[in-house]
Every structure is written in C-alpha cells, then in structure tokens.
C-alpha cells in the first residue's frame, strides 16, 4: 500500500510542477514589463534593475523558471501592484476565511446529501425518493450565486433574519461569525449536496442489490443493520471520491459566493485582482489553488486506499 502512496505522491508532485510551469508561462505571456508582472515591484528604474537580477530575467527561460520556483517555495510571492503589500501576507490573511467557508459548506453538503441519498435509496421509487431527486435536480440546475441573491432577498431584506454581508472574525465573536457564514456556506454547499445525494443514492442502490447484501439479509440482519453496516460503508468510498472531485468546484464557488456576500476571503481576492490587473496576486492565487487541489486530491487518494481493503468494493464509478 505504501508503494501505491509513493507512486501517487510522485504523480502529484509532477502534476504540481507542470501546473507551476503553466502559471509561470502565463505570467511571462502577459503584456508589459515582466519584472513588474512577476514581482509587483520595480516601477522605478533603479529598483527595476534589482528585480531583474533577482528573478534572473536576463538568463535563459528555464533558468528564470528555476529561480522563480525557488523564490515561490520560500514564500516570496512579490507585492500587490494595487496595494503594495506583500502578496504572501495578503494571502495569509484571507485564506482562513475561505477555508472556514469551504469547510462549513462541505460539512453542510455531507450532512444534507448523505442522509438524503441513503433515504432515497432505501425508499426507492417512493415519495421521498422522488422528492429528493427533484430537489437534487433543482440544486444542480439553479446557479448557486443566484440562489445566494434570492436567499439574501428572503432572509436579509424581507425577513431580516440574517445579515446580508460583512463579517466578523471567528476569534472576535464566534456567534456573529457563524451567523454571517450560514448563508454563504449554505449556498456553496447545496450544489455539492445535490451531486453527493445522487451519487450516494446510485451507489447504495447498486450495493443493496449485490449478492453479499442478500446473504446478510438472509442471515437475518435487520434492514437497518444491512443499510448502515454494509451498504453505507461502500458508499463512503464514493463520497470520498466525490469530495475530491468537487474540491475544484468549491474553489470556483467560493469566488462567486464571497463576491455576493462580500466576504473578504481568498476567492474574492482573485476578482479584485483581475479588475485591477494585479498580476502577482493573480499568479499567486492560481498557483495556490492548483496546489491546494492537487494536495487535497492526494489526501483523497490516501483515504481511499485506507477505506479500500476493509470493504468489499463494487465497481463504484467516480
């Protein structure tokens, strides 16, 4: 098993490097002075010369890439052309918020999607199933940023239950923080909940029809034991796989959600950066998103292999 993990880590590393090459090439393809594009500094000639040296801009391209990579790994991400602040610091400030949002959203998604999928599979064809399917389908079809707008309309404007925007750090006032997080997390999580519910439902239906489950029933196990003990464990594998696949959607989704709810997180950073042509920030966000995705997927692979030997897996499609 560890050989498998070693292989997967190797592949993840290669993918990460390839991604970094793409980001680097993208940054160099931008119009304008590469020194400014890469570092966000060097607006005056004297500083510019120093930047050119630091990034090795007069050396051949592969060397440039190497130097850039070393700087990045050390945490040197340049300065924002908009605010002049070091990018690394900006990112460090904003990431926790997005992580909290994403975490809450995923929790919500699992809390809603998993039981819904199980119920729908257990009462297949019944009213619960149909309802769950309808809701899931709507969840997939409705653009979730619009859902966010509608929810703001409903809860903030009309009912005045929850605040529409702004935020308080968790450390200052946890309750207020969560109050403000509920809507965005819900918006972000429902799309994933829909996909999750469908996947769980189909995997469970497949498993419930499998031979070894029939044997369990024949042995006299109660329906609840059959579902929870056997079928559910199998579904966990698809849940894990799906979580991995949906992480990309989470990152994209957080951008929009944060824009609507005015949460100053990592996702919103990229929009602000694009609007103001803040190249170093854009680079950093692209790189970090890709790295996060790759690392998280590796984590999913690890979990998958941990779950695998203990459960007899029917060919669940990812």
């Amino acid at each position, binding site marked *: 098993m560890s050989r498998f993990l070693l292989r997967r880590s190797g592949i993840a590393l290669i993918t990460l490097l390839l991604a970094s090459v793409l980001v680097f090439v993208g940054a160099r393809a931008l119009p304008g002075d590469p020194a400014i594009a890469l570092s966000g500094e060097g607006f005056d000639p004297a500083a510019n010369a120093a930047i050119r040296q630091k990034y090795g801009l007069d050396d051949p391209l592969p060397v440039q890439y190497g130097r850039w990579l070393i700087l990045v790994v050390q945490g040197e991400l340049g300065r924002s052309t908009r605010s002049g602040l070091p990018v690394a610091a900006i990112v460090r400030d904003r990431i926790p918020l997005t992580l909290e949002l994403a975490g809450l959203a995923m929790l919500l998604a699992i809390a809603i999607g998993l039981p819904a999928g199980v119920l729908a599979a257990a009462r297949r064809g019944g009213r619960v199933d149909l309802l769950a399917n309808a809701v899931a*389908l709507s969840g997939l079809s409705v653009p979730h940023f*619009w859902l966010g707008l*509608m929810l703001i309309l409903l809860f903030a404007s009309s009912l005045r239950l929850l605040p529409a925007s702004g935020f308080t750090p968790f450390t200052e006032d946890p309750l207020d923080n969560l109050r403000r997080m509920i809507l965005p997390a819900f918006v972000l999580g429902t799309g994933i909940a829909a996909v999750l519910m469908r996947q769980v439902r189909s995997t469970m239906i497949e498993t419930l029809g499998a031979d070894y489950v029939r044997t369990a029933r024949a042995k006299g196990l109660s329906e609840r034991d059959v579902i929870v003990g056997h079928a559910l464990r199998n579904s966990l594998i698809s849940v894990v796989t799906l979580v991995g696949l949906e992480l990309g959607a989470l990152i*994209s989704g957080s951008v929009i959600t944060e824009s609507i709810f005015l949460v100053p997180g990592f996702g919103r950073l990229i929009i602000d950066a694009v609007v103001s042509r803040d190249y170093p920030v854009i680079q950093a966000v692209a790189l970090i998103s890709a790295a996060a995705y790759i690392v998280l997927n590796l984590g999913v692979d690890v979990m998958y292999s941990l779950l695998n030997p203990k459960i007899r897996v029917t060919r669940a499609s990812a």
Partner: protein
Amino acid sequence: MTAAMAGFPRRVPSFALIGRFSERPLAVVGAILALGVVAIALAAPFIAPRDPASTDFGALLLPPLSEGHPLGTDDLGRDVISRVIWGAQASMQAGVFSTLLAVLVAVPIGLVSGYYRGAPDLIAMRLTDTMLAFPYLIVAVGLAVVLGPSLTNATIAIGLVQIPKLLRVTRGEVLALREETFVAGAVADGATDAFIIFRHILPNVVNTLLVQSTIIVPYAIIAESSLSFLGLGVQPPTPSWGVMLTTAQPYMDRAPWLALVPGLAISIASLSFNLFGDGLRDALDPRLRR
C-alpha cells in the same frame, strides 16, 4: 425476422432509442423545453418586442405587467423581456461552442490514447491531470487577464475545462471497445488502424459522447452566467442573463424582479438540458428496462 437475443444486449440499438426516450415524460418535457430555449435564442431578433439596448430614462425600474413592458424595465429603462430573450443567445453560444471545443479536442486525443496506449497515452493522462488541477474559474480568469474578458474567451475557458473529463470518458470507452471481438474480426479482415478507429470504434462511442455533451451544456449555461456576473464574460451592454444579475444586485430591495427573472431563465434553461440529458442517459443504458 425477429432477433432471439441471449441475455441483455450490450448496447441499446439506435432504433430503440427514440421509443425508450419517449416513455419518460420528464425527459420529453426536458427535450421540448431545451428545444424551446434554442429556438428562442435563434429567433431572438424576430421575437423580442424591443431593442434590448435601448434605454428609456422616463421608464426606469417599472414593475412587471406595466404597459408595454410585460416583465418591467431595469435601471436604465431597458425592457427586461427583450433582454431575457436576447440573453438566451449568449447562453446558447457558450453552451454549444464550449461543447464543440471540448469534443473536437478531447475525442481525437481519447481515440489515439485509448487505441494505441503506450507513451502517448501516458503523456495525455499526465496532461489531463494537470488540467484538472485548475478550476474553471481560474482558467477563465487567466484568459480574461491575458486576452481580455469577452464571451468568446469565457466560452473557450469553459470548453477547456471540460476537456479532461471528456477525454477520460472517451479513452475509457475506447479501451473497452478495442477488446471487443468485432475489432479482432476487423483486424483479421486486414483493416487498417485508421479504419478500425473511425468506422468501428468511433461510431460505438457516439452514444456516450452524446450523453456527456448534454451534461456539458447546462454546466456551460451556468458557468457563462457566473462569469458574466463577475465581469469576466459578456461585457455590457450586450445582454446576458449573468450581466442582468449584476445590474440587478444593487436594486434588490426596490426591484426584486430584476434578479428573479434572469435567474429563472438560467435555471429553466439548465434544468431542461439536465432532464434531457438524464433521459438520454437512461434510454441508452441497456440495464434499465423501460
């Protein structure tokens, strides 16, 4: 002459497809609605009552069912229903062309990769993994920054992001098909590789491609509206449902219909393609009886 088939057929034959599809009411509804959206998009110049860009400062923020404006007007006096109708064009453009891009790139690579395996396959898979690491928004942002925001660039970004999954699916089908006995028969016939790939394997992959395409379209519709909402896609004053939502945001209290209408349009459009796609998938699955 009737067929006496042993067990389940491996693939649903084409002639049975339409029959199986029409047995599902939801799928048929989806198909009709989807067709409707496409028709509206194509006929926009002829059916929109007014010019979607013409402003009327004397008729700002009129509610629905006002005279001359069945769905009201926005903050610049533009007719909402006309903008909604014209907005269908942006969505359909994004939907169709991004799918086309994805298919034209992913399918040939998937065919070669799956049939020949070996080195080209390994390279393609590594590249796919790399592409998968970038969420579509980052790709769209990248393109917007380098090339400037526009519907075309947004469409390209959406298409690019679909390539890895489509490539995986195609490759998977090809891997399975090349083990089929009739492929061995074609080899024994003396067929060239090109013939086998194009006349034996590709036609049998088409079913799956069709289903995947119907999954891409609703995704593209939502993606385009999201990107336009963020300012990375369609640029105002061109109407797009996403752009309409951006302009609606500040007026949510006073004129909630401005946000409601385009959102409903997006939802209905994507729902119809989702239903259509689901129905198609079920109809093509030989394991499902009826």
